[in-house]
């Protein structure tokens, strides 16, 4: 007989009582933030607060308002195209590939190249990215093959074809 399990925590689960020492961290954190804010404002000629604010607030707003929903919908729709048995590992491959492209986007775009200094961004980034992605997807294929032979506990059960 299986023992009754406590349901897993969703993010909105009842919070445990907060740590008593938290007020010390609030004070230290607020003071640290003020050091940064003061530095930004006293060096306003270098930090250009309007431009700074654009990137600071723009990053959070773009992420929450556009990036996160687009990625969620794309993954949800895209993963339906993949048989359930391989869905997890293909999703993993897509996530790794997307994150790699994002991280090296400035190199791919190459806007930092300088005519007088060929040692900046000297590599064939498009070709090298394809090579690296090839390695990632080779790994995905190997996992799919392995999955056909085994059922490692690494992957969650997929009884429900949602």
């Amino acid at each position: 007989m299986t023992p009754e399990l406590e349901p897993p925590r969703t993010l909105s689960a009842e919070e445990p009582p907060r740590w008593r020492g938290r007020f010390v961290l609030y004070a230290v954190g607020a003071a640290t933030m003020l050091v940064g804010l003061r530095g930004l404002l006293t060096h306003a000629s270098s930090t250009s607060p309007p431009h700074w604010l654009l990137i600071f607030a723009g990053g959070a707003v773009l992420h929450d308002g556009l990036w996160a929903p687009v990625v969620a919908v794309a993954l949800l729709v895209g993963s339906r195209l993949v048989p359930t048995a391989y869905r997890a590992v293909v999703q993993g491959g897509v996530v790794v590939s997307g994150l790699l492209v994002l991280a090296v986007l400035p190199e791919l775009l190459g806007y930092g190249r300088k005519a007088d200094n060929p040692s900046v961004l000297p590599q064939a980034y498009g070709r090298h990215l394809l090579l690296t992605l090839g390695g990632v997807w080779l790994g995905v294929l190997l996992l799919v093959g392995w999955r056909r032979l085994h059922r490692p506990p690494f992957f969650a059960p997929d009884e429900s074809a949602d």
Partner: protein
Amino acid sequence: MVRRALALLTRPLPQPPRLLRQGPLRPGRFKSRLHNERVASFLGLALGITFSVCFVTGLISHAIQHPPSWFLWPSRPVNLYRATQGLHVMTGLASVPLLLAKLWTVYPKLWEWPPARNLAHAIERASLFVLVGGAMFQIVTGLANIAYWYPFGFFFTTAHYWTAWITIGAMVVHIGTRATVARRGLSRTSPDLAAEPAGSGLSRRGFLTTVGVASGVIVASIIGESAPALRDLNLLGPRRADVGPQSLPVNKSAAAARVTDRARDPAYRLQVAGAVPHPLSLTLAELAAMPQAGAGLPITCVEGWSADGHWSGVRVRDLLARAGVGTDVRLRIESLQPGGLYRTSMLEGSHVGDPLTLLALRLGGRVLHVDHGYPCRLIAPNRPGVLQTKWVHRVVVL
């Protein structure tokens, strides 16, 4: 007084009309099993570590370049700065997947209802906005900076430095609010360990593994620009340690520094001036006739790359001895550059007398390329590249 303030902060705010609870605000909108406390706790812990490493190594780099009176950076070990700055950039790169995965895991919290339960909750959410804004800012500007791309309208170094304080401050506040939740999420008795809802996509463990693999692939494809042993892995690094004039990368060319004509002027003299009994003015031939020393030292850039070179030239301490002073002095090294933030650098402490601190005339056995600082450049152990002043023409003893 404190009690009244607390009462004010925790007094329930009026609920917004239920009519507004639409779209993502509706209950149960987010069904993925990955929006989960344990996943969020692991990612939060990892980010806490990488951001702390970035902050500390960033402070070190800042202090070396703008030293407060109490701070003295040693000249040994030779590769210490190479390690701290390489770590700074690599942990920043590893944070890209961690940050995006963390934000995605806790995304339903953005749409919690009611948006603010009380004033304290509203302040907490505002501090989260600062944390997310700061974290995105640091990652985006850092990624662009290592690729020499500056589309921002502010000076990268200053903005990145002060925003680091804001971000770390917001992180400390966040740790204060989430410590017990994260502890529960990470504990071996977490109910999340036993039961995972069925689903066809990535499991929680699979998701965390994916994020770890993504960080690993990103770092692996770039780390070769910092770590000589992994040079062959460098497929996507913004630099290659062996590409550049005399097989060494350059940050600022002679043309960009508007120094080419002055550097090639046959009337060039190296002056040793300031508080010295015997000021010197030496031609390039006279410098080359002095005892020459060799040093295998890296150029270690603040952008995270580093590349080894074999330099030879005159030891700074030999030059000072000829001018009649010891090594217990502070020096200002001046470049022929007409301007720029890095026209001069300070040389002090153990760097002055270190036998590896040279005014180099040659690289790899050949006369310095003008982009590497011909006729004469400073090269010293354990020092950022921006302080390895090129096109040196004056050494001022302070």
